[in-house]
């Protein structure tokens, strides 16, 4: 035993003179660190109630509960997370996963309450002292739990595509589709927004599990035209995708296309279990006017319910606006045929080149069928009615597109101006660009519209792609006059459009007459909307039908008109877009079933 070892320990007393290490009043003197994982906060203006926090919580500490004042709307379930602090372990995974960044934590770490139930609370709804605290844990922008980047879609190069009508989008391969499907949160917010309420997370999960058959079954639950939808659907679902708050929404449309592209047409009936439908045929007949999405959708569901259906179509091929309104480079005809052929294979009969109202009257149909569904679509163009619009070299986009599909020659001019900024305008612009390219070897087509660039109704990618194909898009101008020289179109005069809608959101454009522009053109195409052709309704029927103030036929929830035997759906009721048409057809089919069973 060394003396040093005996005496040296007495130096502990040196510490007695020093300032103690502890803090007298830790709760007040020592706040949590700036990014401390304290108690939860929730910013209701951002939260969409997607439930990702509940999904990732490994402790089952989070419940989704309805909260007063939070309405269930498209893109927001109205549910909010309730956290059970008896279970929470403050790992903050819920904060990291939150796709909107609404859920965060404060650096508060003391909370005293008498009632244990208080510790189960809805951050943001229940008043807490830390709700507005600036400090606390938030997701670092450098990390991600979810994958916010979409798998790029392979497309044809602009140089290749503007010479032909070959489909631009190549579609996902299996690896890409699996990777994209992996991004899905399975929150299901999209389902409510989809007009057909397709089980989107369901079929995406099926892609992840590589169970394409099941995925196809899920598609056909409410949508008998997945090839068509997989290409040209307006994908409202993607606008409410939870991932969209922080990055790219899931490519739901392309995934749907991926599913159907994998299945050959001859496997459909086997996979969907429709190979023995003829055993269950009922002795009931339904007539359908128009072989468009609405009509065929109704026909499909009526057919699998056992009804005999017959479709009357004015044009020589099925598909309606899907075929005659959408150019081939977006939706190849063989893909339309794939969907429709399957529907026809179920016993749906289509009589082409038969226009109801002229070749056969609606009354006749009523006489020989138990019910009639009309999905006649919007085939008429609308005119700007500016001076000169009545010239023969001023066309409607719908007419031109129909002519292209029918294979008729179009007299394409060297200089063309398109009026309109919607998807149809883009379709006709790009179609004309291709035709010009084939005819003259160069593109001189210009599209102009009232709306400024940022509020153009067309899809952004449509505009971008049109420009890639050398078409000029010059938005923000209102047409003033089509100048006619010697009976020929000379060009279009436009003035600057300042705003399109008034304070109440009604259409009421305001112009600045001083800012003028002139687009030289030999040919003008108007694409500012479509109108319905209800000429097949005889006067007698028209007088029995109820119309809304805006001129549409009034229908109830199941698309039954005031004439009980007549169901109406599709673009003439809702839309215009294909998915509404499909959804209408589906509901109408159910409605017809109910109506006929009651009868």
């Amino acid at each position, binding site marked *: 035993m060394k003396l040093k070892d005996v005496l040296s320990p007495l130096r502990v007393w040196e510490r007695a003179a020093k300032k103690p290490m502890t803090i007298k009043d830790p709760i007040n003197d020592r706040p949590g660190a700036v990014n401390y994982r304290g108690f939860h906060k929730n910013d209701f203006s951002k939260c969409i109630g997607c439930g990702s926090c509940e999904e990732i919580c490994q402790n089952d500490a989070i419940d989704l509960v309805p909260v007063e004042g939070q309405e269930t709307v498209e893109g927001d379930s109205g549910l909010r997370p309730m956290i059970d602090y008896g279970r929470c372990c403050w790992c903050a995974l819920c904060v990291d996963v939150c796709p909107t960044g609404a859920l965060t934590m404060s650096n508060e770490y003391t909370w005293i309450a008498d009632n244990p139930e208080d510790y189960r609370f809805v951050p943001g709804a229940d008043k807490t002292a830390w709700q507005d605290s600036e400090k606390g844990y938030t997701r670092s922008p450098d990390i991600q739990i979810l994958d916010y980047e979409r798998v790029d879609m392979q497309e044809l190069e602009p140089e290749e595509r503007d010479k032909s009508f070959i489909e631009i989008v190549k579609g996902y391969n299996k690896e890409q589709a699996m990777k994209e499907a992996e991004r899905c949160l399975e929150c299901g917010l999209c389902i409510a927004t989809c007009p057909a309420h397709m089980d989107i997370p369901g079929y995406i999960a099926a892609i992840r599990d590589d*169970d394409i058959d099941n995925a196809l079954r899920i598609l056909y639950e409410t949508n008998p035209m997945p090839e068509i939808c997989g290409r040209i659907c307006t994908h409202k679902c993607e606008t409410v995708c939870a991932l969209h708050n922080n990055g790219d929404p899931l490519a739901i449309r392309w995934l749907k296309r991926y599913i159907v592209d994998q299945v050959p047409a001859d496997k459909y009936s086997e996979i969907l279990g429709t190979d023995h439908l003829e055993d269950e045929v009922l002795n009931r007949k339904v007539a359908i006017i128009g072989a468009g999405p609405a009509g065929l959708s109704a026909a499909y569901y009526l057919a699998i319910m056992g009804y005999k259906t017959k479709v009357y179509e004015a044009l020589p091929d099925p598909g309606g606006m899907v075929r005659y309104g959408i150019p081939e480079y977006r939706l190849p005809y063989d893909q339309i045929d794939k969907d429709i052929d399957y529907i026809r294979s179920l016993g749906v009969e289509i009589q082409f080149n038969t226009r109801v109202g002229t070749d056969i009257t609606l009354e006749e149909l009523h006489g020989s069928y138990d019910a009639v569904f009309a999905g006649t679509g919007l085939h008429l163009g609308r005119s700007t009615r500016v001076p000169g619009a009545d010239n023969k070299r001023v066309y409607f986009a719908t007419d031109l597109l129909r002519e292209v599909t029918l294979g008729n020659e179009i007299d394409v001019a060297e200089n063309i101006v398109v009026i309109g900024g919607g998807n149809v305008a883009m379709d006709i612009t790009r179609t004309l660009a291709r035709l010009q390219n084939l005819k003259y070897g160069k593109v001189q087509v210009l599209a102009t519209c009232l709306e400024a660039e940022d509020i153009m109704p067309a899809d952004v990618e449509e505009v971008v792609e049109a420009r890639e194909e050398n078409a000029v898009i010059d938005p923000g101008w209102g047409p003033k006059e089509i100048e006619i020289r010697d009976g020929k179109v000379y060009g279009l005069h436009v003035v600057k459009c300042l705003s399109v809608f008034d304070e109440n959101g009604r259409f009421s454009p305001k112009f600045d007459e001083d800012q003028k522009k002139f687009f030289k053109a030999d040919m003008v195409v108007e694409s500012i909307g479509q109108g319905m052709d209800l000429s097949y309704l005889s006067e007698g029927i028209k007088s029995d039908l109820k119309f809304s103030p805006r001129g549409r036929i009034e229908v109830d929830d199941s698309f039954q008109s005031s004439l009980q035997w007549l169901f109406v759906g599709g673009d003439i009721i809702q839309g215009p877009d294909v998915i509404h048409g499909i959804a209408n057809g589906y509901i109408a089919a159910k409605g017809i079933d109910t109506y006929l069973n009651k009868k």
Partner: protein
Amino acid sequence: MEQLVKRINGMIHLKAYNRQRDDLFFITVEKSQLELVLSHLKNNEGFTHLAFLQAVDFLEDSKFQLTYMLYNYDIRVNLGVKVLIARDKAEMTSIHKLWAHAWQYQRELHELFGINFPGSPRVEESFVLEGWEEMPPMRRDFDTKEYSERTFYQRPGRSTNDPKEYMKEKMYKNYAASPRIRRDDE
């Protein structure tokens, strides 16, 4: 490492060999030859450190996989020796004479997986689960959730909503499901 594998393969039949990392290898051997391989590795090849002995339940194949993780201090390499044994009446030779701490892994496996190691000291004693009457809990077919629901009670008053179902209820309740088409799982 390849040479070592060759040497062992000369001695016994090696069922599989794979390299996971530069310092981690796995070999799979026959159940009957395990003791031989291990003592060879320990005494002649320098794999003197037994890091652990653990089991993996491959319920689908009705097999347990036992992994003996060895380490060689000289070449600084981990070698996992894998053995597949039958799952029902699982039994394995004890290696408590090779390593003095092996018995406790074997005792743990006996309790948590129900694998017996005849001759291993104190193998019958309970390890962490005194008074446990269910099946060995680390087996895959032991359902923890079912057990806890049976044994404990939930905090009352908790209920949650699926956003999908909730939105359907609120927004499109009358949108009926499709006729005839049925999914796999229904």
